[in-house]
């Protein structure tokens, strides 16, 4: 185990690859290594890239990686694609758009399948980021599955979240709906050479004018509501707020990439200069602990409850003898009895 940890800390790509497999498989071998690596994490800046399918996320990741490589930074990329809920298989095709990056030992690209997770990332993506972080990558680009309006895991994971839009995907009302636009630190209208790009840009700007959660610390709690949102009606006039810029890019021509990199840098400087890094990290930790606790508790509960007992309760619900909430109370009471 120590060999693998040392190899990884010394930048062995084979070690990184193998450990990412163990992490994604939730293999028991992974946890002592993650424990050993944890003190070496927390250095990378994690950039999330999300948006609807076909908006050009992978192509933009390709452009961003090249731009950061030009600054001599090491770039790790995690590209997430969906697992089929029916077969458990997946086609991970994001590398197709990243072929410019091949042959560069300063870039490491890993594709991940969601494996049943619905939030736009895999359940193990956070640990995968930690592996790349410990291995010394300065910038970690995390591309979500083609997301819609509720896949907001990325904002609980990344330091800067980019939401990618493209012209012609919907009317202006889409832009003022809740959800994915609210998580953006930077909004990008890609394919800006397409007709309707200006309309999309102005719709997004209008959305930001109508009201943006001022001084929001950008985190979504486990129960799905924004934490610490101060409504626009009660602004703290002395407190600087981050208004997400709306940028236009054409990823296939690498247009607008320099501006995007500089917007990400401004966001990073804003977070750091306002002393927001520490409180944001605390929130991320809190949310992660909640998620892990919930999973561990369910696991524990199901282990201590016999499948027959659960089956019996399910039967009772199906026969309308028990409503689902009472069924849960019953299973919990049974569990308490078992452990006491």
């Amino acid at each position, binding site marked *: 185990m120590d060999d693998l940890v040392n190899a990884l800390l010394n930048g062995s790509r084979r070690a990184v690859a193998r450990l*990412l497999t163990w992490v994604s498989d939730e293999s028991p071998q992974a946890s002592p290594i993650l424990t050993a690596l944890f003190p070496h994490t927390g250095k990378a800046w994690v950039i999330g890239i999300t948006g609807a399918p076909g908006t050009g996320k992978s192509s933009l990741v390709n452009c961003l990686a090249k731009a950061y490589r030009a600054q001599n930074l090491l770039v790790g990329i995690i590209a997430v694609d969906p697992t089929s809920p029916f077969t458990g298989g997946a086609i991970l095709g994001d590398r197709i758009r990243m072929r410019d990056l*091949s042959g560069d030992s300063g870039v490491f690209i890993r594709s991940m399948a969601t*494996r049943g997770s619905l939030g736009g990332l895999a359940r193990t993506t956070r640990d995968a980021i930690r592996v790349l972080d410990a291995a010394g990558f300065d910038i970690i680009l995390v591309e979500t599955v083609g997301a819609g309006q509720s896949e907001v895991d990325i904002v609980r994971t990344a330091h800067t979240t980019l939401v990618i839009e493209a012209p012609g995907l919907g009317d202006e009302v889409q832009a003022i709906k809740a959800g994915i636009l609210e998580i953006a630190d930077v909004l990008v209208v890609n394919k800006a050479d397409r007709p309707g790009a200006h309309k999309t840009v102005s719709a997004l700007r209008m959305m930001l004018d109508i009201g943006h959660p001022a001084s929001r610390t950008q985190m979504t709690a486990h129960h799905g509501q924004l934490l610490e949102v101060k409504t626009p009606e009660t602004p703290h006039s002395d407190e600087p707020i981050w208004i997400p810029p709306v940028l236009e890019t054409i990823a296939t021509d690498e247009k607008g990439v320099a501006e995007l990199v500089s917007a990400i840098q401004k966001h990073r400087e804003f977070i750091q200069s306002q002393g927001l890094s520490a409180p944001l990290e605390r929130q991320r930790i809190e949310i992660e602990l909640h998620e892990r606790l919930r999973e561990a508790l369910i696991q524990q509960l199901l282990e201590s409850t016999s499948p027959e007992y659960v089956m019996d309760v399910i039967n009772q619900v199906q026969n309308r003898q028990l409503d689902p909430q009472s069924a849960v109370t019953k299973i919990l009471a049974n569990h308490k009895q078992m452990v006491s």
Partner: protein
Amino acid sequence: MKKNIRILIAKPGLDGHDRGAKVIARALRDAGFEVIYTGLRQTPEMIAEAALQEDVDVVGLSILSGAHMALVPKIREVMDSHELGDVPIILGGIIPDEDKPALEAMGVRGIFGPGTNTEVIVSKIHAMMGDASA
């Protein structure tokens, strides 16, 4: 926990016919594999690099150009130099029978011609992974 089988599907060489590769990728997905699809015109270096970063269990090559006797040894060599000697290669495409012994001697573990039932490919991969249950 059962390990997910990851397989790289790549098209080396210069021919532009990727329909076969896509059909196979889709069939393998439907069989529950995680398929890393890298697309057309992959160099041996690109294939080895992707296989390394993605830590795949198998590399599947689709070669229709007839250049398999040049491409396969080169890819095997570059993969070996990336410490991927233990990762098997399977091959799909138009491969004359007389080339098969030489390819197998290079460590190609499965050769599938046009029209091969995808179930045959799936069960071959499972057998290679020592997963007889599936």
